[in-house]
């Protein structure tokens, strides 16, 4: 394989993270992500998938390791003191959507969308509102612009949450089990929106339990278990004919296949 000409979009080196001595969640993760890749992370609960995304967003401290974004280091810890250094400017290029929507309940949909652009980027309210309405229209939510989160269905809330993250023009999107809390009939509308982003070449990293969705959206799949990367490859390989025993067990179980 020839070396890529452009630097990797994300490079994680030796990420270590534990909750106390007995709970090591990340045991030295090394992952590189190329521009344009759509990386799906699968694996058993407690395997460190969500922690990985939270670490990338700077929501969790790390014990050791570093992450660069577009060649720029933005999260690092040398393991000596308990400090995790985070470059917030670089981190602002990353958007994240959570399992439980985390919309601001006291603000209506448009206000949710324009808060960060107006307060962080000092964008004019009228400009931000115009962009917000544009995004909502694209996601089929134009009629809900003035609604409060409590008046929306789970699927609508999650689409608003995605739109809110996109308002900051992220260069990478992180999706942390964004359909896990949804009623089954609402899953598709959220996945459609993410597929729409994928079609526009938005780089993304997705943690999901939905193997159908993983197969449809991934350009590469990583199987994470016990705090390490067990298998890493194209979706046909990892989801279709995994090389590793542990991956095969997991895939068999989630697809309910008994041979």
């Amino acid at each position, binding site marked *: 394989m020839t070396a890529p000409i452009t630097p990797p979009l994300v490079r994680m080196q030796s990420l270590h993270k534990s909750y106390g001595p007995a709970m090591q969640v990340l045991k030295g993760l090394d992952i590189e992500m190329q521009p344009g890749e759509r990386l799906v992370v699968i694996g058993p609960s407690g395997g460190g998938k969500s922690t990985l995304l*939270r670490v990338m*967003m*700077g*929501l969790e401290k790390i014990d050791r390791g570093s992450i660069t974004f577009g060649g720029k280091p933005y999260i690092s810890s040398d393991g000596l003191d308990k400090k995790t250094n985070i470059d*917030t400017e670089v*981190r*602002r290029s990353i*958007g*994240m959507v*959570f399992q*439980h*929507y*985390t*919309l*601001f*309940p*006291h603000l209506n949909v448009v206000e949710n969308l324009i*808060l*960060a652009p107006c*307060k*962080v980027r000092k964008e004019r309210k009228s400009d931000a509102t115009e962009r917000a309405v544009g995004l909502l229209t694209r996601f089929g939510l134009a009629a809900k612009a003035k609604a*409060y*989160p*409590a008046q929306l269905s789970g699927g609508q809330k999650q689409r608003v949450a995605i739109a*809110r*993250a996109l308002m*900051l023009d992220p260069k990478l999107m992180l999706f942390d089990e964004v359909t896990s809390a949804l009623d089954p009939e609402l899953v598709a509308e959220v996945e459609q929106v993410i597929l729409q982003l994928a079609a526009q070449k938005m780089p993304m990293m997705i943690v999901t339990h939905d193997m159908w969705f993983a197969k449809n959206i991934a350009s590469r799949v990583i199987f994470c278990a016990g705090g390490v990367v067990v298998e890493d490859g194209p979706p046909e390989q990892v989801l279709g004919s995994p090389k590793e025993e542990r991956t095969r067990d997991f895939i068999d179980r989630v697809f309910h296949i008994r041979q």
Partner: protein
Amino acid sequence: MALDFSIILRFQDALLLGLWMTLKLTLICVILGCTLGFLVGLARTSRSVMLRTISGVYVDFFRGTPVLIQLFWIFFCLPLILGIELSNLASGVIALTLYMGAITSETFRASLKSVGPEQLDACIALGLPRRIQVTNVILPQAVLRAIPTLLSNCVSLFKESALVSAVGMADLMFVGQNISNNTAQPVEVLTIVALIYFIIAFPLTRAVSLIERRILAKLAI
């Protein structure tokens, strides 16, 4: 025994004056007490150990002692310490404000805590600076959640304010007691006074449950 409620007509001006004093005192103490309670609530959730300790001792003291004793203490001891005579109203305002501040600080503290950690996650993921996280996300939600309990606190204060009659302030209770002593008709007079308190407090308590339902419906995520 024949009850004669017509005496209310003879004393209605006095009763209205007393009611006016009660309402004035309550209103002033609601405004000052809620402000104090808000600041103390913030202090109790702050990172500074000193702020947390001082505010904690204050709240525990005022929640753990009878309001009547607090009133007496402010009326009789504060002038000795400060060396100045305080008017009845000033002493009443200080005492009930300190009491209201302690009670509402707990309300604010609970509502601040009720804003979940996932809201902070969302703030960080959106790159919101700390100041914006507090002023635009945490505080508005906390204050909204606090409103029903704060209204209950206000109704309590309105009723508790009757205690200032014990130190000679001419509020509704004081006027009622005086009339009752002079006319020797305690049953009628005190019943009427109770009714006046009820007529004002009852709509407020109903409003509390109405507002509570509205706010909870709006904030349900």
